[in-house]
């Protein structure tokens, strides 16, 4: 579902994660200064230049709309325009700070974790969680349809029926899916204590990642100086 935002040449995952944290942390510290907008714009430009433009556009649009709405509410609550700009700025910061991670395929992230000798079960679990969200969306659709066929689709006067007709099949399907997946993983040789498992297409740190990190760092320092 986040595939649209993935970059053609993703960053080295730890660099993406750390830059995301850095941008968020530094931005949060100076979030009440108007120079934050300049920081956000500069970061967005830097990220776009490194090929993460889809994530920049997506996150910018989403958080921009969210920020406008929240900003208006903030302004009405606090009674000042400054509050609007501060809230909008913070929302945009959240969006732009998420860009390095948003542009990263989950497989690359888990590969780098495995290269750092993170337990296979945890990396596999993260992959499974992300991968099975759309599968469960499909399951929920099927269940809701099945509820209609049994007359439980719109039984709002009987909430117990709706609760049973939805949660019992959903839980059974979650159990069934996890059993089937466990079997498949075991028969494909996955073992919890296999520390020597290979990594297909390992992710490596390159000069591009270094330049990206340095760029983010310089912009963060500049924010601190100018604020």
């Amino acid at each position, binding site marked *: 579902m*986040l595939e649209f935002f993935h970059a053609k040449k993703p960053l080295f995952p730890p660099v993406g*994660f750390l830059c*995301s*944290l850095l941008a*968020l942390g530094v931005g*949060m510290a100076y*979030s*009440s200064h108007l120079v934050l907008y300049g920081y956000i714009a500069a970061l967005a430009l830097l990220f776009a230049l490194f090929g993460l433009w889809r994530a920049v556009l997506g996150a910018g649009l989403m958080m921009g709309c*969210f920020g406008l*709405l*929240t900003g208006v*509410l*903030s302004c009405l*609550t*606090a009674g000042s325009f400054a*509050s609007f700009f*501060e*809230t909008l700025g*913070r*929302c945009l910061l*959240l969006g732009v*700070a*998420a860009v390095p*991670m*948003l542009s*990263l395929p*989950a497989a690359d992230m888990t590969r780098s974790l495995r290269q750092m000798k993170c337990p296979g*079960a*945890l990396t*596999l*679990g*993260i992959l*499974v*969680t*992300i*991968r*099975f*969200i759309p*599968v*469960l*969306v499909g399951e*929920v659709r099927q269940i809701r349809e099945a509820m209609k066929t049994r007359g439980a689709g719109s039984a709002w006067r009987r909430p117990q029926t709706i*609760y049973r007709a939805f*949660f*019992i099949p*959903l*839980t*059974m399907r*979650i*159990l069934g*899916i*996890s*059993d089937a*997946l*466990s079997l498949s*993983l*075991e028969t494909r040789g*996955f*073992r*919890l204590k296999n520390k020597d498992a290979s990594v297909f297409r390992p992710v490596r740190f390159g000069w591009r990642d270094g330049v990206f990190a340095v760029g983010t760092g310089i912009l963060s320092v500049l924010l601190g100086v100018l604020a």
Partner: protein
Amino acid sequence: MKQKNIEKKNPFRAFKLKDFVFRAVLSAAMTLAGGVTMPLVMHTTLFGLRNMVASPLYALFCAIGLSKVRKPGALSVIGLFSGAPLAFMSVVMFFNNLVAGILAELLMLLFFRNYQKKGAILFTAGIYMPLSLPVTLLFSMWLNGSSFSDLVAAPIPAIFTSIGTVILGFFGAFLGCKIAKELQKAGKLRPYGEDADA
């Protein structure tokens, strides 16, 4: 007798692959539930409303997960897995989920020692989302530019949503335990967890 034998064993029993896989799929369901409920209230600046709305569903799934895998560390792993998709969108939300899971389990170990009693599951699943409130509070204050004194000056809405989060959390946990009991009747869950006969 079976319950006493289990309690005598080391509470930190090793997880099996199927334990991880089940919790991963369950975490996907939790993330989906959050994705459905969050857009309803994400525009509001009212502290704790998002937690309150997500609380019952998160607690429900946690209760089911803990009923099946009754090992310390289970909720922390659920917190890690359910936070992972959020890490790609907001690192703060990832830490929020993870920290809440760890805190809930530490409290469980303090009060109950293990998950063998139903009360332990109910407590841990119910308290999971409320424990994310402190981090949410700090984050919310930063996002809206309000200070702690602003909150203290008008505490009613925050108190309402916090209490609501706790109540709905325990309600969701209660429903989750009911579903788990049904799964036992259907033979899909063992009365004392997956490896109770080990």
